[in-house]
């Protein structure tokens, strides 16, 4: 294959320190061509440092990084025409207009996409002649996205692409990412939105404190959690007392939202009976009772909270 690159991206043992802080502490991952890969993690987990190393901004302290078989640090001139980048923020001239910016960037690449087409694609036709400094945050994000795509890249890096977008722009962006995947483009994105990761990514990695704590498809990852019991009743139940009544440890019962409870246990007939009896004795009615798989958000919160104690 071209450049021996079977994988779009290969990272092995990546480490990056800033002073004493280990921003990335031994990350390894492989991303296939045409895959949409998500990096999830709390702020400061090392997502942006990882992505910026792939983009060639940072030199690894240890480990190797290959993008399309090339070293982003040393092979920049051959790699840059083949990648597209959307930074987490900034990167736009305030004193130019969207169409001017797209035409400028188009001139950098050997086989660019049509700036007018991209302008329509991201829905910026109405503000084509407005200075960037007068655009809303969401419009700037969409322009950054279009600029990342104008060179017809083989790999696109999107750092929190939908931050600041309204729901409609977000839907447009999701569709754009799906179209990119269908066209065979590899997409690497970071996000805080669990629904974004769940709906968009073929695979994702949850990063915490510079390490990957879990990697797989969204379905794989949510299967890690047990099938929990959920029920709805009055808000503010005495959770430790309830846990004791169910013969469970106190931390397995939680109130996710006021009046919405989650019990991390199998829904056995005994558990249902104990719950019903306890609620009757306290005088609470049971509004809803069901089992449910953990959402990605819950897995995420659980994984990234562990070890905080």
């Amino acid at each position, binding site marked *: 294959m071209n450049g021996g690159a079977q994988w779009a991206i290969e990272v092995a043992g990546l480490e990056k320190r800033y002073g004493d802080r280990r921003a990335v502490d031994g990350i390894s991952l492989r991303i296939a061509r045409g895959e949409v890969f998500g990096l999830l993690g709390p702020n400061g987990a090392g997502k942006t440092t990882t992505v910026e190393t792939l*983009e*060639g*901004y940072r030199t690894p302290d240890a480990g190797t990084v290959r993008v399309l078989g090339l070293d982003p640090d040393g092979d920049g*001139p051959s790699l*840059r*025409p083949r*990648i597209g*980048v959307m*930074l987490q*923020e*900034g*990167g*736009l*001239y*305030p*004193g*130019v207009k969207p169409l*001017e910016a797209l*035409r*400028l*960037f188009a*001139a*950098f*690449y*050997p086989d660019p996409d049509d700036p007018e087409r991209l302008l329509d694609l991201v829905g910026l036709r109405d503000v084509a002649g407005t200075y960037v400094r007068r655009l809303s945050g969401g419009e700037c994000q969409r322009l950054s996205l279009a*600029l990342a795509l104008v*060179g017809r890249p083989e790999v696109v890096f999107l750092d929190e692409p939908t931050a600041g977008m309204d729901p409609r722009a977000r839907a447009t962006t999701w569709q754009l990412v799906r179209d990119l995947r269908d066209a065979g483009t590899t997409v690497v994105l970071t996000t805080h939105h669990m629904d974004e990761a769940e709906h968009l990514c073929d695979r994702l990695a949850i990063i915490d404190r510079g390490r990957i704590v879990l990697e797989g498809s969204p379905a794989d990852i949510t299967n890690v959690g047990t099938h929990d019991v959920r029920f709805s009743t009055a808000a503010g139940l005495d959770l430790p007392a309830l846990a004791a009544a169910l013969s469970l440890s106190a931390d397995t019962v939680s109130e996710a939202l006021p009046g919405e409870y989650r019990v991390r246990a199998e829904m056995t007939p005994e558990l249902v009976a104990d719950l019903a009896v306890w609620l009757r004795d306290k005088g609470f009615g049971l509004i809803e009772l069901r089992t449910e798989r953990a959402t990605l958000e819950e897995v995420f919160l659980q994984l990234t909270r562990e070890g905080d104690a």
Partner: protein
Amino acid sequence: MNRSGVVAQTRIELMMTLRRGESLLVTLVIPLGILVFFSKVDAVKVDSSTSIDFLVPGVLALAVMSTAMVSLGIATGFERRYGVLKRLGVTPLSRTGLLAAKTANVLAVEVLQAVLIIATGVALGWDPTAGILPALGLLLIGTVAFAGIGMLMAGTLRAEANLAAANGLFLVLLFLGGMAYPLAKLPDAVEIFAKALPAAALSECVRGALQSPAHIPVGELLVLLVWAIGAPLAAIRFFRWEE
């Protein structure tokens, strides 16, 4: 070199320069204003030559300082703040390409300045001399020196601090640059200090080249060369692409 990229980048740099009112003020209005004002108003008596012969070289030096240091430096500082330099770094436009576009932009503005200043000077009674070619060469050396200072500040200071520093330095160097009035009018201690700065060195060298017979002062030329080598080297050493 990415030719179509450099051409497009040069176009956008020029367009942005022309759109920035404050940049036109400092590069065109102030130098031409000083030229006309000080030639009409006998604010400071000039000893050895007529006032227009003194002013044209000084204002040419001022023009170079305004474009290469102030306009380039402030624009670059804000591009750094807005992450534009960072974003351009992952496009196929190389750093060399970006630098080429910025150089072309500075030179284009300086050509416009020189044409307007010389035309205005002639209208005010200035006689161009054969020294114009060497004078242009000296102005190029001055451009390198001032661009080095502008980029050093743009690449190390926060955008707002850079804005203040570039404008403040412009004013100081205008007062201490032998541009609108002779250095001899300054107190002796200040004059010695002023002679070590690039502004006075450039205006004195250009003045020497344009007088007849031409005589470029060696000491001033050495000072100018030191700045033209030292400032860009410092800029290369200390410039940070991200704020």
